[in-house]
């Protein structure tokens, strides 16, 4: 049976197909052409992924021809000018900054989500949610600039008296945390709203108050959705470029001290791409090796997140 007679919509298409009467009417070749054009548009997304892998892999393989992969993953000094290619300072900086960001964004994002899902009236929710989402709309360059002009000199140095440098992992992490609050809050709120009302009613009927209901019933029930929200926030933080480039600086640093500046993976890519390395040179190919590393890390994080969302959808 050709697909031209299948009804629109994703489900329930077996009913028509079972009828013995020919409902096809006259054949419409145009319909098939349109279907194929639309399919090609959808396949572009697959082509994009393949394109990303190929675009990263070919220069990265050239790079690993010059620099053994054991040096890339096995040594801890990153100084491309002196041909020292141990990626760990970049990776550790990315994860330290991301960790600081999550330390801020997870409690604040979950708190905001719990308030919106469990306490706020529908009217309050309708008004506050767009404001919260505006935080996600602020361009990362503006956030990075904010980290340099306000967070470091005013908040950290003057108010909190923390001895931070002009660039620091702490400032970058805090601002990055603010940027991913909406991601975590919005998705966790969806997960909490999806918890059936009957569970809350049961808890309240047993004499629990709203705090106990939120913490002991709604929270565990929405846990996989919340976990997926946090993982997505994590993947945003790892891939964010301009904030870490501006606020964390461009000095490879394995110290793990959040008060010091350190170069994250994305910052290295951004700064090196801004320079003039000739196409095909080892320093140019380094970009793609680090880019491949970044892509693999976010891919792994995304797989975890997709698996969590799947589990979360099956619960109710």
């Amino acid at each position, binding site marked *: 049976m050709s697909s031209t007679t299948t009804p629109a919509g994703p489900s329930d298409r077996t009913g028509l197909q079972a009828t013995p009467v020919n409902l096809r009417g006259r054949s419409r070749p145009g319909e098939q052409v349109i279907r194929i054009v639309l399919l090609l548009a959808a396949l572009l997304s697959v082509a994009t992924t393949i394109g990303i892998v190929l675009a990263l892999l070919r220069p990265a393989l050239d790079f690993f021809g010059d620099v053994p992969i054991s040096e890339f993953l096995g040594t801890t000094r990153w100084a491309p000018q002196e041909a020292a290619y141990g990626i760990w300072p970049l990776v550790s900086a990315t994860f330290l900054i991301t960790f600081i960001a999550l330390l801020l964004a997870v409690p604040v994002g979950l708190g905001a989500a719990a308030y919106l899902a469990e306490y706020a009236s529908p009217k309050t929710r309708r008004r506050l949610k767009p404001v919260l989402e505006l935080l996600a709309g602020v361009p990362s360059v503006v956030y990075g600039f904010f980290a340099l*002009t306000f967070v470091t000199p005013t908040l950290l140095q003057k108010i909190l008296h923390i001895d931070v440098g002009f660039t620091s992992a702490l400032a970058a992490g805090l601002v990055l945390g603010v940027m991913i609050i909406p991601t975590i809050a919005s998705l966790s709120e969806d997960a909490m709203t999806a918890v059936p009302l009957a569970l809350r009613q049961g808890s309240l009927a047993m004499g629990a108050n709203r705090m106990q209901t939120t913490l002991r019933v709604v929270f565990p029930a929405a846990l996989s959705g919340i976990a997926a929200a946090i993982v997505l926030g994590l993947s945003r933080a790892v891939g964010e470029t301009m904030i870490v480039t501006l606020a964390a600086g461009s000095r490879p640093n394995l110290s793990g001290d959040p008060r010091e500046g350190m170069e994250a993976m994305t910052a290295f890519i951004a700064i090196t791409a801004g320079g003039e390395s000739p196409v095909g040179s080892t320093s140019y190919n380094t970009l793609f090796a680090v880019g491949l590393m970044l892509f693999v890390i976010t891919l792994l994080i995304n797989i975890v997140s997709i698996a969590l969302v799947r589990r979360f959808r099956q619960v109710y």
Partner: protein
Amino acid sequence: MTNVAATAARETVVLSTGRSRDRNLKSMAFLLALWFSLFFGVMVLLVLIVSTVIDGAPRFDGELLTKYSSTLRPEQTGYRAGILGSVWVMVTTAALAVPLGIAAALYLEEFANPKRWYNQIIEVNLQNLAAVPSIVYGLLAVAAVTAAGITERGLVISGAVALALLILPVIIITTREAVRAVPREIRDGSLALGATVWQTTWRQTLPSAIPGIATGTILGLSRAIGEAAPLLMIGTATAIRFDPNGLMSQFTALPLQIYSETSQSREELRVAASAASIVLLVMILALNALAIFIRNKFHRTW
């Protein structure tokens, strides 16, 4: 026994006063913490806007918008090239991404059989693409335009390709949601009258879903307009002193120009970068407001 009775009696008292189970110290502290979390974000947004406005206040003048960037006379540096470049790239990005995104979404919602393996691959792939770092899209665009035989760096078309690939998943996902919200009865009615699937999609489903699609598209574009990282990858110049005049023209974009002038040590350039940040924020706020307006004005519930 007396203990149980006493507890029961206390509970009755508590219940009779309505919501007072929520009025103990711990619950109030919890609620306060939730309030704080919610207003933390709003506070940061306010501080960000106010501090940027104060920093940029000396440069809210016409020259900020009409002059080109200048390191010789930093007190008169302007963002004309960046603003025009951003507009050029945005329009090109929209022209590339919107038709493709809507087509892909219509295929997935109206034509695809979700049980087929290739359709499932498209689904998973889409979820994954939505979380790929923007800088990686920049690396992809470099490879794509090089493969197309364009060797010059930093062209409008290269920037638009990078940003279009970046926002395509966003547009597809929001369009699908809008299309899915159109009730099944509308499609069934159309099909029952003898329309084909495409006629139904084009004349019934798509027009009903347009407000949702417009909202999602505008939000996607507002994300793209603030992106600097992919443009940095394709080698976009930062100090351009002419207006872009076509797809094959070199350009610079507003966020990129802000990035480059923040990295300068001259105080005047930083002041101008603050003022330009406000210009960028206003552009994004305007796009967001437009999206919210469309959503509220044309939103239909069936």
